[in-house]
Structures are given as structure tokens and as C-alpha cells.
């Protein structure tokens, strides 16, 4: 259970988040949507303690992560798997090494056990044979999938996806969505997906939080989106639909009753 309470954060006199509160119960997949630069990533970085709020508190499983020691914070972070926007693979290591890295660092497992786990993770992201490749030899989509495999290697309780489909072609995007969906089902994790891709949201999310003008302007289930009359949300969805309409069929994201 992740609970954000009254988070306020500003950078250089620009308020990015203003009094934002959000609960993410166990097992839920929450999609955080909003325009680029609306503070989605900032909100999520607070959840992992990568940013410290100016005001407000963050609880992960009951622990205030900004009050515990750095050592304890790092222990809490190990409950998370984070898929960064660009993948953030360590470019000095091969795909295999990248996935093995958290295992080698945080478990005392034997090399053999680690190898088996890495292969398992690569299978889960459907890239069984690319272990030896370096990140620079992989396409953007493959990098993201390897990064996903790395994020799940330690069987995290929470997975945070930062723009998992941005910059990918629709086919690859769909594949990533399916992957997230199947992982959520298989691993029973709590997920937070940051995205502005409505297609993705509708495919994978249980609940949606819409960030607008530094606040959470709207929360509700995926079904609720279809019935909302919230101006800004509708604007956002429509803008998306236009883009999606070009890429895939608009009917899939039919929002009009």
C-alpha cells in the first residue's frame, strides 16, 4: 500500500505539485495520466523517495519514507521495480548482466540460480536469446523490455512504469501493454503506470488519476472515463483519440456513449 499525503513540490518557483493526495491499494494497477510536464513523473518519484516533497508525507507499507534513514529507504526501494522512460539500462553491461545486476547485488544466490532467474525474466518479456547483446545493439522496444525484465528480476511488490510505450510504434506499444497486463496477472503486483497514451490506459489500468494544473483533477475507474464530463480530462482524452485515431482504430477507444 502506497499512500501520498498532501504532497507539494516546487522547482525554481514553479509549483509542480500542489497538495496532492493519492492512495494506491495492493494489487491495483493505477494509471497516472496528464499532459507532458504536468508533474506525473515528479509525483511518482516521490513514491520511491527519489524526490523529497516540500510539504506532505509518503508512506510505503506504513513507513514514512522521508523520515527513515537512507539505509532503510534503500531497503524499501528494493520492494519497487522501476521501468524508466528510456529504459535506463546500464550501457556498460550486456542485457544479461543488466538483469543479473540487482540479483547479484541484493541476493546471495549462486551464479547458477541467478542465470536461471535471468533467463526466466527474459522469457517473460519474450526476449529469450538476447542475453549477450549490449544495450546499444538493441532497438528501443527491446531495451524497454530488457529494462522491464530487470525491474521484475527481484520479484518486486510494486512496479512503476514511466511512459512504457512512449516513442514506440503502435505494434510494439501493444506488445508492451500485453506484457504489463500479463505480468500484473502472473505476479499479482501493485502497478503504477505513468502515461499519456489513452490506448494503453484503457488496456491495462484498473483506476486512473488525471493530473492537471499541479493537482489531481480527477480519479476514477477506466469505465468512469467514458461517463465523465470533466472538461480538462475530456480535452486530454480527445486530443489523444485524435492521435490514436490515426494510429489504430478509434472504435477501440470509443468514449462516446
Amino acid at each position: 500500500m502506497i499512500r501520498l499525503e498532501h504532497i507539494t513540490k516546487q522547482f525554481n518557483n514553479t509549483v509542480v505539485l500542489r497538495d496532492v493526495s493519492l492512495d494506491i491499494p495492493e494489487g491495483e494497477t493505477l494509471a497516472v495520466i496528464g499532459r507532458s510536464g504536468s508533474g506525473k513523473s515528479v509525483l511518482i518519484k516521490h513514491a520511491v523517495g527519489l524526490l523529497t516533497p516540500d510539504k506532505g508525507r509518503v508512506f510505503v507499507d506504513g513507513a514514512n519514507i522521508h523520515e527513515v534513514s537512507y539505509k532503510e529507504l534503500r531497503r524499501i526501494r528494493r520492494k519497487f521495480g522501476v521501468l524508466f522512460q528510456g529504459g535506463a539500462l546500464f550501457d556498460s553491461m550486456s542485457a544479461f548482466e543488466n538483469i543479473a545486476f540487482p540479483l547479484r547485488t541484493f541476493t546471495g544466490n549462486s551464479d547458477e540460480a541467478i542465470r536461471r532467474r535471468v533467463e526466466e525474466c527474459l522469457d517473460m518479456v519474450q526476449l529469450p536469446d538476447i542475453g549477450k547483446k549490449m544495450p546499444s545493439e538493441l532497438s528501443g522496444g527491446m531495451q524497454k523490455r530488457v529494462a522491464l525484465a530487470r525491474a521484475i528480476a527481484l520479484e518486486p511488490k510494486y512496479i512503476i512504469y514511466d511512459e512504457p510505450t512512449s516513442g514506440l510504434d503502435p505494434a510494439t506499444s501493444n506488445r508492451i501493454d500485453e506484457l504489463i497486463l500479463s505480468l500484473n496477472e502472473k505476479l499479482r503486483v501493485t502497478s503504477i503506470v505513468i502515461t499519456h497514451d489513452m490506448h494503453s490506459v484503457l488496456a491495462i489500468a484498473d483506476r486512473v488519476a488525471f493530473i492537471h494544473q499541479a493537482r489531481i483533477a480527477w480519479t476514477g475507474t477506466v469505465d468512469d472515463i467514458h461517463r465523465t464530463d470533466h472538461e480538462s480530462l475530456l480535452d486530454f482524452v480527445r486530443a489523444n483519440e485524435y492521435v490514436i485515431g490515426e494510429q489504430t482504430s478509434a472504435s477501440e477507444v470509443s468514449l462516446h456513449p
Partner: protein
Amino acid sequence: MTYSLAWFLHPFTILGKYSLLIFQAFVSPDDFRTYRKNIFDQMMRIGVESIPIVALAAAFSGAVTTVQVSYQLVSVFLPATVIGSVVAPSMILELGPVVTGFILAGRVGARIAAELGTMRVTVQIVALEAMGLNSISYLIAPRILAGIIMFPMLYVAACAIGIGGGIAVANLGGYLTTQEFIQGARNFFRPFDPYFGLSKAFVFGFIITSVSCYMGYFTAGGAEGVGKSTTQAAVMSCVFILIADLVLAVTLL
């Protein structure tokens, strides 16, 4: 008024930021197991892989010093052995550590800054943090440790090869024989000198790695920022090597 004060205080802010970074790198590290592989990786990259370029630079500086000393000190009043007496201590005291330092400021310093800078701008450092690692101690401690362990090793190599280069040129150029060279080197040899050179190498190793880690770790501004950090790391390492060289000479000699 406030502007000039800020300008005056700026260097101290940087010094504080730098000191805190280095302090954090060594306080509360994770399990040693986490760093073991990393330390050996860095020792390979910083130390072993630098041997060829250091050897090249040392051999040439030893050779050039020999030729120039022979040229400058040719006199009936001076025995040929004087060349050995000048070349060997200059290599041990000054050229060995400083030439090694300069070469490595370029090679190792720039590399560290580029590595960490790229990791910073491609979110790899944040990824490390998000994984639950102490990114500062994970990235910086092994590099500094490798620096202060391997630089003295490179210094020893530089001295041995530099004096060797001097002897080779002394023979080939007909300036003096190996025996005369060694005789001269022995005549004015003080056992303290190599230890002083070793301390210099130790300090330079710390300066290059820590300054470059600082530059790289706090890189901002994408690929351009990485370029800037890389250049600055090499330049600032050289500047601080020169300052440290003088400070050490004044305090220890």
C-alpha cells in the same frame, strides 16, 4: 553587492558540495560484496589499461630529459655522471608523478566524467538509486579507491621505465654509459625521494578520480553537458595536480 558576494562564495559552495560527495561515497557503504567486482573493474580500467600510455610518456620524458641535461650541462668541470644524478631524481620526484598525473587526467579523468555524466543524463544513476543502491558510494568509492591504489603502481612503472628510457638514450646517443648513469643516480640518491613521489602519486590519484567523479556525477544538460563535464574534469584535475604538487613540495620537502 550581493552579486559579488555570491561570486566570492561560489567556490566555497563547490568545495562543500565536492567534500560532501566524497564523504558520502565512503560513509555508510553497502555490503562490500556489492563493490568488489566494481573495484576490480575500475582497477583494470584506471590502472592496468593505463600502463601502455604511461609507459610511453615516461619513456619519452626520461629520454628527453637525458638529452637536454646532456646538452645543458656539457662542461669540462662536470663529470658525465651528473646527467644520471639529474635525470633519476627528476624522474622520481617530479616527472614520474606529474607526467603520470597529466596523462591520466586526460585518460582516466575524462573517462570517469564521461561515464558518470552519461549515466546521469540517461537516468542510469537514478535507476541505481531506485533499485535501492547507494549510487554515490557504488559509483564513486570504487573509482577513488582504484585511483589511490593504482596510481602509485603506475608511478613505479613510470619511474622504472623513465629511467630506463634515459639510460637507453644515454647509450644510443653516446652521452654516457649505463654504468656512469647508474653511478650518477646512486651518488645523489636519497631514499626519501621515492616515498615522496609515491605520496604524490597517491594524492594525484585521489585528485583525478575524485574531481572527475564530482564533475561526472553532477552533470546536467544532456550530451552537451557530458562534453562539458569531460573537458572540465581533465582541466580541473590538471590544475589541482599542479596546486597539490606545489603544496606537497612546500610541506614535505
